[in-house]
C-alpha cells in the first residue's frame, strides 16, 4: 500500500497498545507507536471519535468515515466500540487490558473514575501495564479538574501571549498557531515517555502510570521567554519590535518569503547578494540590533529588491550563501516540493470509500527500525467482532446484545 512497507518484522510488533479518549493527543501518541509496528486497538465511544466530525473531508462533504484528520491519526490501528461510561463497556475494556502492555488515553481527570480509567486503580489491577494519560493541566494540582481544548493549552502554556510577535496592534488578541499544536505535543511527549517506561519494564517487569500535562509541554517550549522574567525581570509579549533584524515576511514577485539574516556574517552575504546598495552601510543598519530597531526603514529599502525575485529563485540563491531565508510555503507548495518528493515524505494510502490519501509520513528516518503505514484507518466498530469475539472470547450473542443496548 505504501512506499515504506518493505519492512522486516518490527521488534515493536510484540507491543500491545489500547487507546481511548477522543481527538488528537492519545490518538497521535498511539499512532507514533503503531507506525513502528506496535499493535494498537482504538476504543471509540458509540457515537464515534470526535475527530471523525472535524474533517477536512473529500470535496468538503462531511462524512464521519472520510475525515482527513481521523484517517491521519488512525491508520495502522484496529477499531472497536465500547461505551466506557457503562459497566458493560468497562467489562470490554477489561478484556482488552488483560493482555495489553500499554494503555494510552486523554480522558479528562474528572471523567476517569466513571470510565474505569483511574491510573492508580489500573496499575494495582495490572502491575505490568503502562498507563499513559494526557490531559490539559496534568492529573494533580489546583487546575487538574479544569476543562480545556487546544486553544486553552496555547494560552495556559504561555505561547499565545507571545504570538505573532513584534505586533504593532495592541487591540488584536494573543494568536494561536495554526492547527492543534498543544494536543500534538501532548501526544509526542506521551509516546516518548511511554517508550521510556517500556525500557524500564524490559529491565524490571514493572509497569507504571505516566501523567503528561499539555500546559507544561508548551510552557517548556517558549525559547528564552520564561527566563526573561526569572533572570532579568522582563516581561515579553506579542507586542513590540524585533530585537534583531532583518526578520520579516516580504513580498516577492510570485509569493511571500521569510527574510531572516540576524547573524552578522549572514547580513554581509545578504548585502553582497543585494549588489552592495549604498544604504546598507548607513548607520541606521550598522549592526543586527540597529537593523531590528530600524526594521521598518530596512523593510522599505529591501522591498524593491525583494519584489523582483521569484520566491524559489531567491530561496536557492540565499541558501547557497548560507542565508536562512525560507518561503512562506502553501500546502500546495509542500505537496509539490521536489525535496520532500526526493525524501518520499508524503505516503499514499488507499482508504476505502475515500481513495488515495497522501498522508504526512515519517518524522524521523530510521536506519533499522521499520516505519510503515500498513492498514487504513478503521471504520467505526470495524474490528469489534474480530477483537472481542475472535480473540477475547466474547460470544457473538453477547456482542449483539451490547450493540442493541448501545454499548458496543
Amino acid at each position, binding site marked *: 500500500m505504501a512506499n515504506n512497507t518493505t519492512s522486516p518484522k518490527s*521488534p*515493536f510488533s510484540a507491543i500491545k497498545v489500547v487507546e481511548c479518549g477522543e481527538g488528537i493527543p492519545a490518538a497521535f501518541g498511539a499512532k507514533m507507536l503503531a507506525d*513502528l509496528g506496535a499493535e494498537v486497538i482504538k476504543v471509540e465511544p458509540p457515537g464515534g471519535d470526535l475527530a471523525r466530525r472535524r*474533517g*477536512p473531508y473529500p470535496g*468538503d462533504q462531511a462524512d464521519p468515515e472520510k475525515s*482527513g484528520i481521523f484517517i491521519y491519526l488512525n491508520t495502522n490501528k484496529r477499531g472497536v466500540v465500547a461505551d466506557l461510561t457503562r459497566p458493560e463497556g468497562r467489562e470490554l475494556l477489561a478484556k482488552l487490558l488483560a493482555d495489553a502492555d500499554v494503555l494510552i488515553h486523554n480522558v479528562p481527570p474528572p471523567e476517569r473514575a466513571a470510565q474505569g480509567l483511574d*491510573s492508580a486503580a489500573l496499575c494495582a489491577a495490572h502491575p505490568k501495564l503502562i498507563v499513559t494519560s494526557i490531559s490539559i493541566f*496534568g492529573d*494533580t*494540582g489546583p487546575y487538574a479538574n*479544569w476543562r*480545556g*481544548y487546544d*486553544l*486553552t493549552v496555547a*494560552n*495556559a502554556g*504561555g505561547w*499565545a*501571549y*507571545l*504570538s*505573532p510577535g513584534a505586533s504593532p496592534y*495592541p487591540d488584536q*488578541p*494573543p*494568536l494561536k498557531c*495554526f492547527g492543534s499544536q498543544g494536543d500534538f*505535543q501532548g501526544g*509526542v*511527549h506521551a509516546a516518548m515517555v511511554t517508550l*521510556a517506561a517500556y*525500557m*524500564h519494564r524490559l529491565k524490571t517487569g514493572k509497569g507504571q502510570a505516566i501523567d503528561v*500535562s499539555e500546559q*507544561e509541554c508548551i*510552557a517548556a*517550549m*517558549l525559547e*528564552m521567554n*520564561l*527566563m526573561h*522574567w526569572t*533572570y*532579568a525581570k522582563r*516581561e515579553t509579549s506579542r507586542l513590540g519590535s524585533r530585537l534583531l533584524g532583518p526578520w520579516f*515576511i516580504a513580498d516577492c514577485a510570485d509569493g511571500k518569503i521569510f527574510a*531572516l539574516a540576524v547573524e552578522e556574517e549572514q547580513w554581509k552575504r545578504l548585502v553582497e547578494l543585494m549588489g552592495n546598495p549604498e544604504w546598507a552601510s548607513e548607520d541606521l543598519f550598522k549592526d543586527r540590533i540597529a537593523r531590528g530597531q530600524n526594521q521598518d526603514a530596512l523593510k522599505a529599502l529591501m522591498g524593491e529588491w525583494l519584489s523582483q525575485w521569484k520566491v524559489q529563485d531567491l530561496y536557492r540563491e540565499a541558501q547557497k550563501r548560507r542565508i536562512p531565508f525560507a*518561503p512562506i*510555503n*502553501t*500546502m*500546495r507548495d509542500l505537496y509539490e516540493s521536489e525535496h520532500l518528493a526526493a*525524501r518520499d*515524505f508524503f505516503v499514499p494510502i488507499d482508504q476505502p470509500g475515500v481513495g488515495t490519501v497522501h498522508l*504526512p509520513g515519517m518524522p*524521523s*528516518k530510521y*536506519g533499522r527500525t521499520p516505519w510503515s503505514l500498513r492498514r487504513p484507518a478503521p471504520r467505526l466498530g470495524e474490528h469489534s467482532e474480530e477483537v472481542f469475539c475472535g480473540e477475547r472470547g466474547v460470544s457473538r450473542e453477547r456482542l449483539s446484545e451490547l450493540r442493541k443496548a448501545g454499548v458496543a
Partner: protein
Amino acid sequence: MADLPLSGIRVLDFTWAWAGPFCTMQLAHLGAEVIRVETTARPACVTRLIPPFADDVPGPNRAGYFNQYNQGKRAITLNLTKPEAIEIAHALVKHVDLVVDNYAAGVMDKLGLGYDKLRGIKPDIIMASLSGYGQTGPYKGFVGYGPPASAAAGMFFGTGYEGGDPGEIGVSYPDPNAGIFGAFAIMAALAHRALTGEGQYIDQSQLETALVLMPEGLLQYDLAQREPERHGNHDVVMAPHNCYKAAGDDEKWVSIAIGTEAEWHSLCGAIGQPQLAADPRFKTAALRKQNEAALDQIITAWTSPRDRWDSTRILQGASVAAFPSMGNKDLAEDPHLAERGYLVQLDHPEVGKRIHAGIPWKMSGTPCAVRKPAPLRGADTEEVLKSLLGFTLDRIEQLRKAEVLI
C-alpha cells in the same frame, strides 16, 4: 541513584542552538548521563551568548537560554578543529551508547565523526542527526533555523488574524519540536537495541517533524483542494472559540472555547444570559459558528470589565474551558505549576536559584527529576577525561595549552 528509565545510558552530545539541546535534555530528565561537547574556539554555542543574562550581567554561564535547555547535563570543552580533539572524541565514543548532533548535513562526516566512522569504533552505537532538511534530497545542505522552518512548514501561511496576511507564530517552535521528535526516535532506537542488540543511524529533518503537525492544512489541500484559511483564534467547528479582552492593560486576555451543547448552556448561565441558549442565532453548533462574530461581541462585553482570573474561575466553575493568556511572569508565579513541582529552582554556581521550566510529565514508578542545573562551560572536562579515558592531569594541562581542550 534511583533506577531511572535511562540509568546507565551515556550520551555524547554535539548539539548546539535549541533543537538539539532540547532533545538531549529529555534524555537527561529520564536518567541518562549526557556529556555536552562545546568549544570556546569559535562561538558555536549561541545560546550562551544571547540575552537574557542573569541580572543583565553577560557571561557564558549566565545565559537563561543555555541554562534552561541544558539542565541535568555535563559539559566538556573539545576544539574539534584539532586532530587530537577528534581522537579524543573517538575514544569517548567507545564509552557511550548514543551520539547526537544537529549540524547541517555532512558536517559530522567532514569532522571524521560520521556514523560509518563511529560504527567502526562501537558497532552498536546509536547516532541521531537532527538537521534542518535531512541528510538527503536537493535541499540537504540548506540552513535550517527555527523561524524559517515555521515558514517552510506552512505554519506561517496558516496562522494569522481573520482575513489578514500570513503571520509569525511567536516562538521558534520547530526547534523544540524537532528536539522532542528526536527524543522519541532515540527512545525507539534504544528500545530496538534492547530488544535486538542492534544500533542504528537516525536522519531527522526539522522540516518533516514540523509537517507531521500540519495534517489539518495539508489534508484539506489533498482532499478538498483548498488551502487553509486564516481565522485568528477561531476554530473550523467550535464556536465561541477566541481570546477575549479582560480588564487591565493590552496584555490581559482570557481564552474561552465551547465544544459541546452542555458547555454552551453552561456558558450562557455563567455569564448571566440563560436566554441566549434559546436564541435562534445560536441554537446549534453550526449556527453558533455562523454567527460567531455576534457571539464574540456578547462575550467580550462580559469579559472586558472583569479580571481574567475572575472570569476563568466563574467559567471553570461551570465546567467551561476558560483560561487567561499567560505571560512569563504569570507562569513563573503560577500556583498550579508550583504545586506540581514543574517549576525548578536548583542552586547554580553563577546565577543562584532561578526558576526554570522542568519536566512536563510524571512517572509513578521511576520518578524523574531535574537532577542538577545546567553545567558551567567545560565544568566536567577533567573528570570525564580522567574517569573514562584515564587521562592524567599533566596530559590534560598539555592538551589545554595545545588548544585542544578549549
